[in-house]
């Protein structure tokens, strides 16, 4: 039998130094490996060394910093170039320096800080409440089939419904208060986090559940110790999208609902710029909204995602 021959050779090569032993092992060999236990341990240790990954030291990759900054510079230069061609009136299309100057003025007044802080605080609080509400709901929907079938389409529908549509209703219910703002943020973020979690759960290899079952996990243990961590990459995608929806809904609510006890956020600043026909203020507000979004992605989500993928060995060959 050719297969048997192959193993016998493998066996010989391990205990090969001792020719006597080798001939003896050929004589009485079963299809098992011969050799004393220490040699086998060494063979095993050698294989382990050869076959497993050694850790590569991570170093700072400067292209990560230089490339985005270069791209930004190119865009600003193009903007300045367009403005200097003079197709439009300067008060309608201000240049980068005009906007920077206006933002500086707003900062000196303390308006810029107030707007950014108010909005950021609301966005973060609204997002955290959404996470706390959406995570158990998402797990429940993903794990219990009748619930999923009953409410799944509704949740998907809510995700498609623009949350701005809730603003008029919220104003009637809650008046011009923070309640309105938070309601709109929650209606925007919760469905998208639930959907992200559900699609993450759907992509779990079925074997993980079999393993969990064999290991004797209860329903709750299955959900918390196996399904949730296994779905984490998809869940994180849902969280990112949930944050995006929070931030967008917040801006929409702040632009539409102005006055009352509602504080002064970036959306309010934007609306103020529009009322005063002050294009530099409008551009400042738009850019501030954009940069807060980029900052949250870079400081919060990107490191978590990288770490998550790296630990699972999913980052090799990606362009991140």
């Amino acid at each position, binding site marked *: *039998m050719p297969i048997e021959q192959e193993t016998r050779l493998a066996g010989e090569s391990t205990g090969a130094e001792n020719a006597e032993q080798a001939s003896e092992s050929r004589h009485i060999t079963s299809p098992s490996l011969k050799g004393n236990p220490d040699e086998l341990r060494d063979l095993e240790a050698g294989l*382990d060394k050869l076959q497993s990954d050694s850790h590569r030291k991570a170093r700072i990759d400067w292209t990560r910093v230089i490339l985005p900054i270069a791209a930004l510079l190119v865009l600003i230069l193009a903007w300045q170039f367009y403005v200097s061609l003079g197709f439009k009136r300067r008060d309608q299309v201000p240049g980068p320096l005009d906007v920077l100057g206006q933002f500086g003025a707003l900062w000196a007044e303390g308006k810029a800080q107030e707007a950014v802080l108010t909005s950021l605080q609301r966005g973060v609080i609204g997002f955290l409440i959404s996470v706390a509400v959406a995570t158990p709901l998402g797990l429940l929907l993903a794990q219990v089939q009748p619930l999923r079938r009953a409410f799944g389409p509704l949740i998907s529908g809510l995700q498609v419904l623009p949350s701005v549509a809730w603003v008029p209703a919220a104003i009637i219910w809650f008046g011009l208060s923070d309640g309105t703002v938070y309601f709109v943020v929650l209606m925007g973020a919760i469905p998208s986090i639930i959907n992200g979690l559900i699609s993450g759960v759907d992509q779990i290899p079925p074997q993980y559940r079999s393993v969990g079952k064999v290991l004797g*996990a209860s329903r709750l243990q299955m959900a918390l110790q196996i399904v949730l961590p296994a779905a984490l990459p998809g869940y994180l995608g849902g969280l990112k999208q949930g944050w995006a929806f929070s931030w967008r809904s917040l801006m929409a609510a702040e632009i539409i609902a102005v006055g009352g006890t509602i504080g002064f956020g970036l959306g309010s600043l934007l609306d103020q710029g529009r009322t005063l026909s002050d294009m530099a203020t409008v551009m400042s507000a738009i850019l501030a909204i954009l940069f807060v979004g980029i900052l949250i992605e870079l400081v919060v989500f990107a490191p978590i995602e990288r770490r998550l993928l790296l630990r*699972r060995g999913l980052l090799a060959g990606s362009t991140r």
Partner: protein
Amino acid sequence: MPVVLEHLGKRFGDGAPVLDDVNATIQQGEFVALLGASGCGKSTLLNILAGLDQPTSGALEVPSDGAAFMFQDSALFPWLTARGNIELALKLADKSGSTSKASRAARTGELLDLVHLGGAGDKRPHELSGGMRQRVALARALAQDRQLLLMDEPFAALDAITRDLLHDELERIWKETGRTIVFVTHNVREAVRLGQRVLLLSSRPGRVVAEWNVSEEHRTDAGRAGELTGTITRRLREEIRRHAN
């Protein structure tokens, strides 16, 4: 407690039966190799023994605390380290919450040492070789501390040298722990190497059609082992040829 299968049958929906009239008794502490061509329902039978699937007919007697299971690919959880995977198994097996975290950590260390992976406990599954992953999976299966251990072609995807090593390792661990092992494979040589008894399962429907005892003599005498391997291989091929027309 022995494992007893009586007239066990399984069909999925209205299709042809996958298993039909399977009869077998496996004694406590016995190492049984379940041999069959691909698609003969070996894995289905193992899933039924593990309680992952229900038989459609016949009776089944398995230990009431269930069985430990080792899959063809290691099926380790990629978000946990090797140590974390074993610790999770200990935690899930502990229904009454009677073990402390420290005692579980100590037991995990013992299990890692048992499979000679004491130094690799903090590595994640993707950093381990296929053979190392299967050893972690074996340690995890042993962590369940159940008398019956079911193995579904656990070494099929490994290279020859690693597989031979793991055969030795499994035999050693079986002798040390005294588990009852049902080992599914399509590799005749592997079945003869490991099993005290080899059961041949026919294909479509699966049924135990032949059985051989592997004596100590077969393990020490290459000639006898080869003879038995030849006999079983012929019988297996015959079984597969039946389906040619």
